[in-house]
């Protein structure tokens, strides 16, 4: 029973925190959001690659550091604290793990290695209309053709889909679900860039007979299983980033309570607001516990993983949202302006609680797994 990070992990967390503080405060996100470009910065992305962050959990043969998901989560927590806009969750966690788990060595070399270096970015196109959060209800089709497949259908809300160099697309083949790597500039692929609620961007995809070669099918492991694992990584990643968001909001709020005056006194001296702040503190503490369990269990193969991830994502959707909404409330009028950062965090929290399944989805998953679920204590 040891919750301590090892020294390398502590150093990593500190390095990322310092980077975010000096190189990517919230103001940078705000500027990029308002600049009407793609919303993030290629040079910063490359720097992240040079620092080893984009491949921290991937094998050496693609330039990775062979650490585990814990390191990924530690990075995401720090990125969440200052709303760093680069597509770490979309490209490293969703796109990257899909390639790492389902790609053969040549495929990983071809598409994962450049992303790890920060040369390219990835996206995972799994969500479809009418499929809610189930990645196996796929209407996109992949019809075998000479030398490959032809993909047809639509994908929605592809995070970083507007900017990614490669899109990993799920589609139904005659022999079941499969994953394909599609270049962003592939003919007959239409990307509609979307503004998202959190000020980041994504895309809807329309595939109208996109031809892909056979070697673009990722088949080193069954696609449905890979998607299940990748979406659990995504959910655990969203929790880690959301933990950063929630703890930043708690800090901003307690600071505000300690400085803002009304009726001649600091508003943080009002007991009702104090107790609200304590309730926020409680939810952040429980979110941290759940995030820690999820980041450790994320690499496990079985039901221990999905139970821990669902419990964590549920706590993000309930506890994290409570923190977020109360933060805005306790900021009063300034909290509902665009110019105060608290609203930016509020919106990121809203997005993160949807990404890879909301609280209702994960509560239902947890409920239907009851009995299988193995809590952390063997004493269940």
């Amino acid at each position, binding site marked *: 029973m040891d919750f301590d990070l090892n020294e390398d992990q502590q150093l990593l967390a500190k390095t990322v925190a310092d980077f975010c503080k000096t190189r990517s405060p919230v103001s940078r996100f705000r500027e990029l959001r308002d600049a009407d470009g793609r919303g993030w910065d290629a040079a910063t992305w490359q720097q992240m690659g040079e620092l080893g962050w984009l491949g921290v959990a991937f094998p050496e043969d693609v330039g990775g550091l062979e650490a585990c998901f814990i390191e990924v989560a530690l990075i995401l927590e720090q990125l969440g604290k200052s709303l760093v806009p680069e597509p770490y969750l979309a490209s490293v966690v969703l796109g990257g793990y899909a390639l790492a788990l389902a790609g053969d060595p040549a495929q990983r070399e071809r598409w994962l290695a450049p992303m790890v270096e920060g040369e390219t970015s990835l996206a995972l196109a799994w969500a479809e209309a009418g499929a809610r959060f189930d990645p196996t*209800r796929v209407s996109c089709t992949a019809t075998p053709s000479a030398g490959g497949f032809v993909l047809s259908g639509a994908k929605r809300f592809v995070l970083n889909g507007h900017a990614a160099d490669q899109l990993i697309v799920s589609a139904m083949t005659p022999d079941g679900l499969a994953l394909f790597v599609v270049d962003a500039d592939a003919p007959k692929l239409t990307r509609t860039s979307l503004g998202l609620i959190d000020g980041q961007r994504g895309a809807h995809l329309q595939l109208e007979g996109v031809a892909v070669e056979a070697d673009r099918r990722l088949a080193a492991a069954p696609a449905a299983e890979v998607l299940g694992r990748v979406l659990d990584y995504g959910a655990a990643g969203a929790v880690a980033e959301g933990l950063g968001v929630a703890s930043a909001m708690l800090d901003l709020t307690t600071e505000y309570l300690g400085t803002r005056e009304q009726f001649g006194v600091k508003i943080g001296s009002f007991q009702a607001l104090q107790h609200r702040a304590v309730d926020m503190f409680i939810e952040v503490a429980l979110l941290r516990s759940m995030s820690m369990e999820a980041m450790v269990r994320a690499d496990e193969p079985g039901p221990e993983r999905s139970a821990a991830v669902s419990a964590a994502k549920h706590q993000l959707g309930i506890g994290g949202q409570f923190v977020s909404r109360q933060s805005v409330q306790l900021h009063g009028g300034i*909290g509902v302006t665009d110019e105060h950062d608290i609203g930016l965090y509020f919106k990121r929290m*809203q997005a993160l609680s949807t990404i890879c399944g*909301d609280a209702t989805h994960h509560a239902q998953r947890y409920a239907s797994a009851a009995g299988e679920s193995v809590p952390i204590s063997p004493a269940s």
Partner: protein
Amino acid sequence: MDLNFTSDEQAFRAEVRAWIHEALPEDLAVKARASAQFTHDELMRWHEILAAKGWVAPAWPKPFGGPGFSAAERFIFNEELELAGTPPLSPFGLVMVGPLIQRFGTDAQRERFLPKILSGEEVWCQGYSEPNAGSDLASLRMSAEDRGDHFVVNGQKTWTTYAQYADWIFCLVRTNAAGKKQSGISFLLIDMRSKGVEARPMLTISHSPAFCDTFFDNVEVPKANLLGPIDGGWTLAKALLGHERTLVGSPGLVRRWLRLAREIATAQVGDDGRPLVEDPHWSRRFAELEMRLRAHQVTIYRALSEQLKGRHPGPETSILKIVGTDLIQRVGELCMELMGHDALAWLPEPGVVPANEAWVGPSFCYDRAATIYAGSNEIQRNIIAKHILQLPSA
């Protein structure tokens, strides 16, 4: 006891509903169905239509140009507007300063201001809060210095909603720094085109330019623009605050949002492929909100019943702002949840999400303000604790 409206009142409701259906231009009706946010121009178009019908100021007495509705009719009229989702008219002239001018104004002020409020020719905004006087309104600092026939005004107002579109602003200003802080406040009407007035729009969390910071730099205001007695503005302010509070408890908005939520739940399918509306989890969520709304609505009808008898609504109506704004937020949260991935969209192009979902995100964000403005719900609880439960002061 009789919990029904009279048949006359029901006939009036039918008339209003039919008229709205007829009179609301098609482009505005489309936006209404999607609970979209209206532009200032759209509000003013609807203002003119209502004004032409003589219904733009339902609460004004007939001599001032009101339609002569009974209290029940006023209530029904407003409820129908909310249910139809018509553009919400700017309340600052029609609902706030207009009635104050009627009650506290001179004949000259009445003649000068009231007709142009009715016609929409002059749009008003409200200058109450200041950067360091929000919940603690009485500690405001904007000053009006007496210079004989005029005041010279200096200071800053914040949260001046839609000041960028306003022709006039009514302000609480400090005319006397001595004594209790409530007692040196006056109520001034200021022309927004006066030299030295500047309204700087500020984006809200929903990206609409609803608020301004409004600055006053040596602005000259004629004494004729003082409403009510000098140093007596707090009485007027209190009259307004009470009014604002009953406004926000109105359940028509919640009912309309719930209707939208049901539409969304019918179109969205769950992980099991069935429409969400058929899932017991969601139908239970709907039932809980609908029952809460029902309790809120009956409480409002209790207040209305008091009003119809010419009595002051009882102390229990002080809860309406808290319950109503809590409901607005809960139904917004429900819509966001129901939308699944679609909740990620922000001001999407047509086709990205179903049309009735397009405005949910911004409204959800904007409605965080519901529990903050018009006396935050924390302030409301302070007031109830002190004045109704008569709990001891700290």
